[in-house]
């Protein structure tokens, strides 16, 4: 059936037959014939689909649109509206068909997917992201059509407020309130910006969301444009994401061709264009005022707020900035309702959150879970536990701005407040699982190296403070830590948290302060006992050759300082004074005869 475009599945269970499904079938066939679509449409009869109360059930694929209580008279409308015009027959769509979790039908109910709930990523992996028809077939742009035809701008903002959605970029500011502020700020021109400058090391949910479902973002932005009275949208995206950029470009082009963007969208009074602007490798541009400066063609340096961008943003005009994940929730909220959305999650954090789970966990990748899921659920039930049989040591959430939580906090629920209460943050959703082979001082140093390198250099606490903190951490890992160093880190850290100009500097000390709080013993071991229990900090290690040595001489040959001696087939020894702790012998030995401690 090379030409088949649609498969209509008709429930042929007794209940539906009783309610008239057979006549519906005849009517469908008649309508198909009328439009000469016999080659394109095939009708399947299925066994009972279990939705007997809503029969007769008609399912249109691709798209898995479920129509219920279909009558003979409705059949022609389904063919004409859905198949020919590409529009849903909304009044027949079965309510339970939420937009989320469509992937179950494709990926089934395994552990990894089964415990997730996919709203943001609902279409990722389901649709062809370069084909607008695929998106349309899954009720794509229906939310936009709905707001243009049925809702006032205020209704839209109210719906978003009702949903309880909060900014997914890290700040957690109530999205509806932000829209309201921007809508009410004085000015005749406004901008809508999608912040796709995802730069957290180890986080890639925005990239996946755009690459997998670019139209959702565009639709969300257009809805906001209508709600706040803006005609101009901008996606600010990292230049490092060429595929995402390409897909966005294609999506914008296709949407414009279909009158879903551009002038008088869908015949309405509303016009909205979206332009792509590229970043150029500066993490700080995720901060909204820095992002604005970058779009304006300047150095991406933050400025003090207020004024907030919602009042004075891009080119001095009121500007609404949300991140990718936030935008992806909007069409769902419009179609399934803010009230429904707010039923998911916890008291203060609604909906779902996408996390990029990485590090020493069996299943790495993106997971989307309802707010309130525990860290333990994510690490063990979805992530499959620790890889390599090691022992769990910490989980780092929130990227370089977040904190490291030890095992005792594993039952913490992921929501904005709970994570903050235990000294970490939700951030944009990075989640790194750390096992016993990682040194927490070294981990803190790693994150600080990142923020230090990404500091824009504008404010003193971040520019100079993170540098000094990094120096102290470095000397601790090199065995040169001094009494008082922990206190200095705490002092600089709290100062930078409270005094820095922007979120980057304010949160840069988090990995350090949280590891001091939760793993202070490791810091003290490094400083006072000159020991790194994880065996990571080279300068603090002692390499020893043990009985297992067969005297093969491999270690002796690789040692760059000739610190290893021993005759062939005899136990070798390491001269500790000459050893520079490069670890090459350890890596080379095939007999596990060298230990480091």
């Amino acid at each position, binding site marked *: 059936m090379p030409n088949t475009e649609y498969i209509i599945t008709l429930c042929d269970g007794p209940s539906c037959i009783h309610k008239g499904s057979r006549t519906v079938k005849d009517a469908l066939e008649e309508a198909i014939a009328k439009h000469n679509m016999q080659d394109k449409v095939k009708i399947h009869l299925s066994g009972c689909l279990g939705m007997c109360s809503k029969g007769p059930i008609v399912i249109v694929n691709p798209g898995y649109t479920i129509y219920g209580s279909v009558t003979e008279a409705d059949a022609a409308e389904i063919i004409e509206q859905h198949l020919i015009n590409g529009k849903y027959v909304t009044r027949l769509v079965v309510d339970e068909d939420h937009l989320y979790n469509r992937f179950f039908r494709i990926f089934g109910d395994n552990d990894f997917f089964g415990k997730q709930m996919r709203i943001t990523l609902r279409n990722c992996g389901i649709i062809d992201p370069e084909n607008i028809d695929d998106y349309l077939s899954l009720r794509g742009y229906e939310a936009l059509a709905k707001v243009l035809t049925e809702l006032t701008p205020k209704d839209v903002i109210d719906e978003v407020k009702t949903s309880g959605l909060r900014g997914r970029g890290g700040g957690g500011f109530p999205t509806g309130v932000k829209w309201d502020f921007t809508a009410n700020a004085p000015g005749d021109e406004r901008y809508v910006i999608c912040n796709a400058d995802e*730069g*957290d*090391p*180890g*986080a*890639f949910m925005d*990239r*996946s969301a755009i690459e997998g479902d670019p139209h959702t973002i565009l639709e969300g932005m257009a809805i906001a444009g209508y709600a706040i009275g803006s005609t101009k949208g901008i996606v600010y995206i990292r*230049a*490092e*994401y*060429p595929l995402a950029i390409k897909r966005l470009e294609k999506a914008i082009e296709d949407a414009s061709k279909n009158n879903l963007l551009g002038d008088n969208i869908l015949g309405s009074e509303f016009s909205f264009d979206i332009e792509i*602007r*590229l*970043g*150029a*490798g*500066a*993490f700080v541009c995720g901060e909204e005022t820095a992002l604005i400066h*970058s*779009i*304006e*063609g*300047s*150095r*991406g*340096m933050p400025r003090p707020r207020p004024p907030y961008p919602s009042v004075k943003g891009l*080119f001095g005009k009121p500007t609404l900035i949300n991140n990718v994940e936030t935008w992806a929730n909007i069409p769902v909220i419009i179609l399934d309702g803010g009230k429904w959305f707010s039923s998911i999650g916890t008291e203060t954090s609604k909906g779902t959150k996408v996390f*990029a789970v*990485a*590090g*020493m966990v069996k299943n*790495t*990748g993106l997971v989307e879970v309802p707010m309130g899921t525990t860290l333990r659920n994510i690490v063990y039930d979805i992530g499959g536990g620790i890889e390599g049989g090691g022992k769990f040591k910490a989980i*780092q959430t929130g*990227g370089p701005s977040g904190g490291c939580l030890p095992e005792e906090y594993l039952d913490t629920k992921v929501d904005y407040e709970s994570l903050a209460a235990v000294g970490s943050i939700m951030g944009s959703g*990075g989640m*790194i699982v*750390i096992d016993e082979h*990682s040194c927490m001082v070294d981990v803190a140093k*790693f*994150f600080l190296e*990142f923020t230090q390198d990404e500091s*824009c250099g504008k404010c003193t606490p971040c520019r100079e403070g993170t540098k000094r903190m990094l120096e102290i951490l470095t000397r601790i890992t090199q065995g040169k830590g001094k009494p008082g160093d922990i206190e200095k880190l705490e002092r600089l850290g709290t100062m930078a948290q409270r005094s820095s100009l922007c979120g980057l500097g304010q949160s840069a000390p988090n990995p350090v302060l949280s590891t001091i709080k939760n793993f202070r013993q490791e810091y003290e071991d490094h400083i006072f006992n000159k020991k790194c229990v994880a065996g990571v900090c080279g300068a603090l290690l002692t390499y020893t050759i043990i009985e297992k040595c067969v005297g093969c001489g491999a270690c002796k040959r690789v040692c760059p300082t000739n610190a290893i001696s021993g005759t062939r087939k005899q136990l070798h020894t390491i001269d500790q004074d000459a050893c520079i702790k490069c670890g090459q012998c350890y890596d080379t030995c095939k007999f596990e005869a060298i230990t480091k401690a």
Partner: protein
Amino acid sequence: MIEMKDQKIDELKEYIAATQSNDNPESYLIAVLHKVQGLFGYLPREVMDVVAKAMNIPTAHIWGVATFYHYFNLKPVGKHIVSVCMGTACYVRGAGKVLEALKKNIGVEIGETSEDKLFTLQEARCLGACGIAPVIMIDDKIYGELTGKTATELIKKYRKAAKG
């Protein structure tokens, strides 16, 4: 050679001219610098002068922007750009060792170009391929699950291919 350069400059000027009819034309500076890098591989000083004139933006401003963003190269780069991902996942899985091995094999530090102009070594922030960490990207191609050894072998392969 010079003709080719003139051609590129013409192309650049056309690109700039197209942006200048938009609102807030100066805001296209970063896009224009991306174009310059696309054409020349880096941001040559004399080309930044051309941009300054065509966009009516002071050179100091352009220089401030060019040096702020790490994506822009201020010096000519090698034939292949080797980016070692230093994202968290890669770091946890041994990106440091891969980087050390590459530095040694190519004979340069981060940000430098090898003497034979074949490779420029760079550090990258998360390339989004955490599932196959540690990864490096050579030009547009991603290689994953690397060790110091396999990474050097990759470089050798590129070197061999370049020699034909």
